[in-house]
């Protein structure tokens, strides 16, 4: 019976009920859409940044991260590669060696970061092989060929194009002179200015020979299908690295700024969300309180007829819950539809392309919906409105039948 009463009361003032539930709906739709958008952009930022070069995790010689010098290399221990292959989420294992050297063309010379890569597996840990704008990537035979691919800006600075020769000058691992003559076969463009300006890739074998690496490498780069499932395997990767006296770095260690950037973004948007929840809670509190106060006489009659205050309170709670459920249902449906729509179409930022590529993002953002982003915002809105209903309900317990009936 109380539910029936509450239901009918809700529709005595249909305009108020509709406005109140629309306020809830609007806020919850927004609080579904925004976190989904943020989550989606975090995921794509992390994926894009890691896939560009770093991979999902790396195994290195201890101390290499702080001192990435050529001497801090590692000899691949027996069985390590096989152990890694047995871990479920690892799809690709690629070895690299890295050093700075001077690249010189006929007219120019520039410093560059030279990376020795296994050309067949490199395409699976890094997007550089797929971002070749001219020519081609290193051939897939891991041979000792004298080919080199350069970043776009580096190639432009050196004034070289496909087929030109460049001379490499650097220091070998044992301190000897490292010198080589290489042919440019490809030019890549990643959109990250530091990479396009500084990076050049040659085959790992060639690198090891030129820099007197004695079969050693600087990093074993690991990759998988997606970062969240890959993270589950980090424990086993740490264990394998430790067993071989090496260190494994996960993506947060490889890109320490990235996680902090995400946390910063979350913590700057939180105050906005809290303020929105507060605004909608206050306006709902107002509406509920008014609906209680304007019925003072009616409640007086109910009380004098013998209805208990607790039952009237129950009725008010039910009215509020009806309002909340109505609002949340509309809001969740709206938020879901909106988010799913943009998850397919994407939100395009043609003008902000500059920013996005610098952060490793494509120029469209795709919100990602999951149970958490779908329910957390609406849940908090519902709970905070429910909590604020305590104030109007307390009014009911204070009512005395006779004065209440006489109230204007």
């Amino acid at each position, binding site marked *: 019976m109380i539910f029936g009463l509450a239901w009918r009361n809700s529709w005595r003032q249909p*305009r*108020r009920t509709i*406005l*109140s539930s*629309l*306020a809830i709906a*609007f806020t919850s739709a*927004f609080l579904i859409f925004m976190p989904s958008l943020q989550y989606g952009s975090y995921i794509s930022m992390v994926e894009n940044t890691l896939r560009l070069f770093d991979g999902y995790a790396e195994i290195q010689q201890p101390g290499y991260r*702080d*001192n*990435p*010098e*050529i001497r801090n290399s590692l000899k691949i221990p027996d069985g390590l590669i096989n152990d890694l292959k047995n871990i479920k989420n690892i799809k690709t294992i690629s070895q690299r060696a890295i050093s*700075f*050297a*001077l690249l*010189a063309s006929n007219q*120019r*010379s*520039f*410093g560059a970061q030279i990376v020795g890569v296994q050309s067949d597996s490199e395409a699976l840990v890094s997007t550089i092989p797929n971002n070749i704008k001219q020519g081609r990537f290193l051939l897939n035979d891991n041979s000792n060929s004298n080919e080199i691919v350069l970043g776009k800006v580096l190639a*432009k*600075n050196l004034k070289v194009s496909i087929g030109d020769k460049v001379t490499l000058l*650097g*220091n070998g691992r044992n301190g000897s002179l490292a010198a080589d003559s290489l042919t440019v076969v490809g030019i890549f463009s990643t959109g990250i200015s*530091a990479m396009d300006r500084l990076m050049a890739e040659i085959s790992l074998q060639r690198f090891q020979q030129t820099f007197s690496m004695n079969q050693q490498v600087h990093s074993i780069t690991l990759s998988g299908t997606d970062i969240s499932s890959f993270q589950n395997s980090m424990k086993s990767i740490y264990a394998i690295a430790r067993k071989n006296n090496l260190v494994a770095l996960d993506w947060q260690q490889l890109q*320490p*700024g*990235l*996680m*902090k*950037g*995400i*946390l*910063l973004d979350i*913590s*700057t948007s939180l*105050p*906005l969300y809290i*303020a*929105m929840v*507060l*605004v*909608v809670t*206050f*306006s*709902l*509190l*107002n*509406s509920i*309180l*008014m609906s209680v*106060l*304007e019925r003072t*006489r009616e409640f007086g009659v109910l009380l004098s007829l013998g209805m208990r205050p607790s039952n009237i309170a129950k009725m008010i709670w039910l009215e509020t819950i009806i309002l909340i459920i109505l609002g949340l249902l509309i809001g969740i449906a709206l938020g879901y539809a909106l988010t799913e729509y943009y998850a397919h179409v994407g939100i395009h930022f043609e*003008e*902000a392309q*500059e*920013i996005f590529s*610098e952060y490793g993002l494509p120029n469209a953002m795709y919100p990602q919906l999951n149970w958490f982003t779908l329910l957390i915002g609406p849940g908090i809105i519902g709970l905070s409105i429910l909590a604020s209903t305590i104030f109007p309900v307390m009014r009911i317990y204070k009512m005395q039948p006779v004065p209440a009936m006489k109230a204007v």
Partner: protein
Amino acid sequence: MEKLKLFISLSWRNLWRNYRRTLITFSSIGIGVWAMIVLASLMEAWAMSTFNASINTLTGHAQIHAEMYLQDPNIEYRIDIPNEKQTALLNSDAVKAWSVRVRVPAVVQSERENAPLMLVGINPQAENGLSFIPDSITKGTYFNDADSPGILLGTKLAKRLRTELNKRVVILSQGPGGDIKERGFRVTGIYEVEQEDTETQYAFISLNKAQSMLKIDGDISEVSFVLHNLDELDHFLEKYKKLNTLSNIKQDIKSWSELEPFTLALLDMTSGTIALLTVIMFILIAFGLVNTLLMAVYERTREFGLLQALGMKPSYIMYMILIESTFLMGIGVIAGTLISLSTIEFFSSGLDLGALAEGSTMFGAGRIMYPEIHWLQSSIIAMFVWIMGIITSLYPAWRASREVPIETINKAY
């Protein structure tokens, strides 16, 4: 006029007939406005921090180069030091600081390691107020004059090179003929900045040493300057360009927005986001406002009927409700604005991002945000919410004026 006075006092009293409702509505409007203004100010502070970091990192408000230099920052593309007329313009009151630099790509070698970087020859005194260099030396000393020997390295680069103060490094760079020039420098200073990229990207030597090492006589790569007032930049650049056209000098003059399109895009995005959030927050406030006013109208239906029966024109009832909403919004907006201004004032001495600072520097901003009171922006947000609120209340006001006197007087509750 008499009537207006009457409306105002009627509306004012009506507001306080149900003070609880009025107070709750105030709080809801106030919180909304407060959140908007404070967030907008934080976002502005963030954008400013990015802007300043970018201006301070050698960009200045504008730069002058040889044509082609920006596409290909090579020693081949040089300009003469500013001539008499150009110097006079650069020394004018509008300019806060200006300097000339040699800036070429180079490789630095320590005993252990080598790394590529931009070698910048600077005039040490002129960099004061222009770039970060003079204020960022954490070890050793800054240069005394344009002849000072030595080199300044970034902390991170020094660590990567495994070198330290007073050790020697060798700089290799290309001279004008294409031959490699090589010279040893003693590390006389180590600088530290928030953006680690900068620390590995630039090494500084004195201007004369750079010119003599590269054998380019008195030539330079760039002129950079900052003005006292950024708004005068376009005008100033216009003057400089005109001067160059008159003397038949071909130079590439670019403002910061052309040099750093990334920073410009970030600033644009910030103002766009602020506008969007203001609108969304307003829609939320509007729901609450319309609801409150509608209720206030409904519970007074009988009263409005009576007023009309006594001869009050329907339009007067509408004015009365509109004035009520003007008060309701106004007090909420003003309270929200005042509280937000004091919140900003509280943080204006610097809001340390603490543990999150690494993320902030990754995005090119600083570790400490300095929110400022932006009068114009705050008043735009406040006025927007206020005026839109009054417009929104047209609907309840119109409803109230439409009641038919006899029906409403007889309406039972």
